[in-house]
């Protein structure tokens, strides 16, 4: 992080606009308490959480990305927050007020009311190494037959077809297993969103984001633990959170 964003709490004045722009972290209730390099621009019941950011272009640093997420995630355990996508920058605080807070006040206030007392948890899942490939080969004799033909006589077209058959079969398994995760934990959450990985790597399945009432956090966590135990030996689950509800605000106002 650069010197400007590390600086003590400050309000951006008109004079700074040429060199410092306004990074928008998220929208929070007006009564939210902040500390460090961020400050609030309040408008009626809501506020924009902002920090200075230099207008000089530069590739964002690893630490800046981590700080951004950490700040929003910390906040999310105590107050509702609408996280903005990283990189949301406006020319000045006046523009934040005029173009973000004023026109969207009612929608933001409603979203904050909906999110109150909730945070996101994210379950990331992957198969144990090579396990899904072995399953596919056991279930899809066509894939194994293709493989045998290739062993006898290499043929690029056939090889591509083998990869394709297996890739599609793996994708179908990912979908089924990710949906199963969402369904298994559904009783403990308010909402769930599934994202599948379609990666060149075989083992990752994807992630399921859950919006969880903080009051039910323990019940949710033990249900996730139970699920991990149930799938032990086939799928590994990794639970992230509590975090800001990134997956539950996309497109809501955009």
């Amino acid at each position: 992080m650069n010197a400007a964003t590390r600086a003590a709490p400050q309000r951006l004045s008109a004079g700074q606009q040429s060199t410092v722009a306004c990074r928008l972290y998220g929208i929070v209730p007006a009564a939210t308490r902040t500390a460090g390099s961020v400050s609030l621009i309040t408008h009626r019941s809501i506020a924009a959480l902002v920090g200075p950011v230099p207008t000089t272009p530069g590739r964002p640093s690893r630490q800046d990305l981590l700080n951004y997420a950490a700040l929003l995630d910390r906040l999310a355990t105590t107050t509702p927050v609408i996280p903005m996508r990283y990189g949301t920058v406006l020319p000045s605080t006046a523009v934040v007020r005029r173009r973000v807070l004023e026109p969207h006040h009612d929608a933001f206030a409603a979203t904050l009311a909906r999110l109150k007392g909730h945070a996101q948890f994210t379950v990331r899942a992957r198969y144990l190494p090579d396990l899904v490939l072995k399953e596919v080969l056991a279930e899809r004799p066509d894939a194994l037959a293709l493989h045998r033909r290739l062993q006898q006589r290499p043929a690029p077209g056939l090889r591509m077809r083998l990869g394709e058959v297996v890739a599609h079969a793996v994708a179908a398994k990912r979908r089924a297993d990710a949906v199963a995760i969402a369904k298994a934990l559904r009783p403990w959450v308010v909402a769930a969103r599934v994202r599948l990985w379609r990666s060149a790597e075989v083992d990752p399945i994807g992630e399921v984001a859950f919006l969880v009432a903080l009051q039910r956090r323990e019940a949710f966590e033990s249900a996730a633990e139970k699920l991990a135990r149930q799938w032990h030996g086939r799928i590994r689950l990794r639970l992230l959170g509590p975090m800001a509800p990134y997956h539950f605000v996309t497109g809501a106002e955009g």
Partner: protein
Amino acid sequence: MTTVLTDGTAYLERPRSSGLAEVVDIILDKGLVLDAFVRVSLLGLELLTIDARIVIASVDTYLRYAEAVDRVVLEPAPRTRLTDLVGGLQESGARRKVSGAVSGAKESVKDALGIGDGEDEAAGDQKESGRRARKRDRS
């Protein structure tokens, strides 16, 4: 692999803080996107976004899967097991499925060109809105 378990968190991985890869996936791809007037002014961000997004099914992906199959089948243990499973009885079934795969080839070309599915699935309107949002980011 763990065999003796004494506490309730032995199976579920609980990192104390998220790693960079996880953070990048979430904060660059999710979170609220405002209207077009919000400029993404940090140079390199778009590039980073593309780097972070995992490449969709393509020729290269298929070849990697084929390679992975070679590796798995050539391992001794699964080989015996699989050979047992897939006997002569299933040969005709196999042929049927292979021709099914051929008809899927058109789809795979679309994938290779980047047309078709993204990474988000089963998330209602998430996928579409995400795509629109990305377009806005670039404009």
